[in-house]
């Protein structure tokens, strides 16, 4: 089940999507972080933030809306409460970061550069729920500036988390590559909302939120497919994974790793089950390794990664 991505060896390709598995020592969660290909942390910010007013999460027919707003204890608290205890984990640690300017992103990268426990930095360029005028990863110039600043601030592997809310994701993958990112994560959530029919006001405290759930799979799968053809950067896929065959589809489209988010709320052991199912799905497809699956359905990816 092992896979290599941006020079990081993962024991398996499955990991939580940022913000859905916030491991702390002694939190009682029955899923051992060392079962995961990597622990991806909730996005941290330089200073502390409270997050958005309730309601923050809401289920609609076919999707979940969330508008958490990145509550964060700030970098120093993160170092003490997570990075120190994480020293005893065997799995990889991907730290997700969020900022409000290229400068803030770069400052966080510089701080994380000194942290041996951090194996990669996921740049949250695409949160729909914070008080910026626009989502960074829907503006090529802005995104390139941030990724470039991060690249200059750290030698750690960078994973640019892209927004799905763009007409064509290919140019954004190229911008990430040109600015020095080592991988891309495709993708964050779409922006959506719900209105309470009798109260006649938005359900979410922040009006809008991120749309997640199983319906995202075919949409993001296509974006992964497009990203695969657009560059040679490794891809971390994220969106609508509930089953091992969902994860396999992402691998076949060219992803090297696959994140699971919303599924873990109703089923805290979803990542364990999906890992077992992926193993079985690979076997059923006659594949002996995850590496063999990556890009196998994609003509251009196959050519660039040397699969027969």
């Amino acid at each position, binding site marked *: 089940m092992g896979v290599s991505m941006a020079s990081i060896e993962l024991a398996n390709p499955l990991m939580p999507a940022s913000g859905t598995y*916030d491991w702390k020592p002694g*939190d009682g969660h029955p899923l051992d972080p060392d079962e995961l290909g990597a622990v991806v942390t909730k996005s941290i910010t330089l200073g502390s933030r409270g997050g958005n007013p309730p*309601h923050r*999460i809401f289920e609609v027919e*076919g999707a979940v809306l969330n508008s958490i707003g990145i509550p964060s204890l700030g970098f120093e608290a993160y170092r003490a409460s997570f990075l120190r205890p994480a020293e005893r984990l065997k799995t990889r640690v991907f730290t997700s970061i969020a900022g409000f300017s290229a400068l803030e992103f770069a400052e966080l990268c510089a701080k994380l550069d000194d942290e041996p426990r951090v194996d990669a930095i996921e740049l949250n360029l695409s949160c729909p729920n914070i008080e910026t005028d626009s989502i960074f990863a829907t503006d090529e110039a802005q995104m390139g500036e941030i990724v470039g600043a991060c690249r200059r601030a750290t030698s750690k592997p960078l994973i640019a988390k892209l927004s799905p809310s763009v007409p064509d994701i290919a140019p954004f993958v190229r911008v990430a590559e040109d600015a020095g990112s080592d991988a891309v994560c495709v993708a964050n959530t779409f922006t959506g909302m719900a209105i309470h029919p009798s109260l006649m006001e938005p359900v979410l*405290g922040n009006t809008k939120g991120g749309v997640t759930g199983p319906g995202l799979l075919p949409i993001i799968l296509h974006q992964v497919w497009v990203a695969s053809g657009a560059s040679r950067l490794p891809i971390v896929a994220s969106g609508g994974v509930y089953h091992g065959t969902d994860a396999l589809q992402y691998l076949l489209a060219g992803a090297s790793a696959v994140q699971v988010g919303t599924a873990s709320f109703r089923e805290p052991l979803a990542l364990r089950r999906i890992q077992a199912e992926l193993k079985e799905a690979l076997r059923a497809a006659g594949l002996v390794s995850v590496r063999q699956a990556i890009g196998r359905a994609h003509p251009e990816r196959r050519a660039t990664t040397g699969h027969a």
Partner: protein
Amino acid sequence: MRPWVVETGTVLANQAVDATLSRLTLAVPQVARLAAAGQFVVVRIPRADALLPRPFDLQSADATSGTIDIVYRVKGRGTHALAEVTHGSALELHGPFGRHADEVLSGLGRIALVGRGAGSSPLTFLAVRARELGIEVDAYLSARTELLLTPFHRLWELTRVATQIDDREPGKLVTAHLERDLERQRFDAAFVVGSRRLARATLDLARRHGMRAYTYAESHMGCGFGHCKGCAVPTRRGYALACVDGPLIDLEEVSDAYWAKISR
């Protein structure tokens, strides 16, 4: 955080009291052994299209029989689907979560329990635990109809219960009974659940009579165990999470924004 488990239980009973209220009894031995008064569980609604699980306060948990009871309001998509679950079905849940009521019960001499509708559910567990600790308990229950009080019959065995039924006394608040009792009896704390209107009235009484007032925070929840940060409760010190900082919270801690959502 205390240990919690993911466990698949068996439905022993899932009975409708009326179209709006049901009572669920589950054989779920590990959860029943771990659970304490004040805590809740998160139930996976057994339908592929139910994407978030639903949190429910525990009415009771019995380690010996390995069972738990939940009284729930049949209101939205999730609880309507839950109401369809039949006797003998498997049901997956995780928990128990939240603070133990012992954290606030210890040292108290007499408490008042104030509940409205399905919200009265956790008060039974609280009353049982309080009696075990030697605490005097009085209960004040409110409901739309008398029938809706039937799931809480055990409270009558444990303590004196005053009631207010909308059918008979429209517009009256059950806290009027508590107010009357406070004239002659000291209470150290009141626990109010199921109605923010009653919570507001109870907090006002608490301030006048020098008692604490606690509620079970209600919130839309994603996971139950503190990872998704979805169940924010506005407090004077910023947002608390109902799942790990609660569900029992001191009403003096909540901020004006909490009361602004009074109709929800």
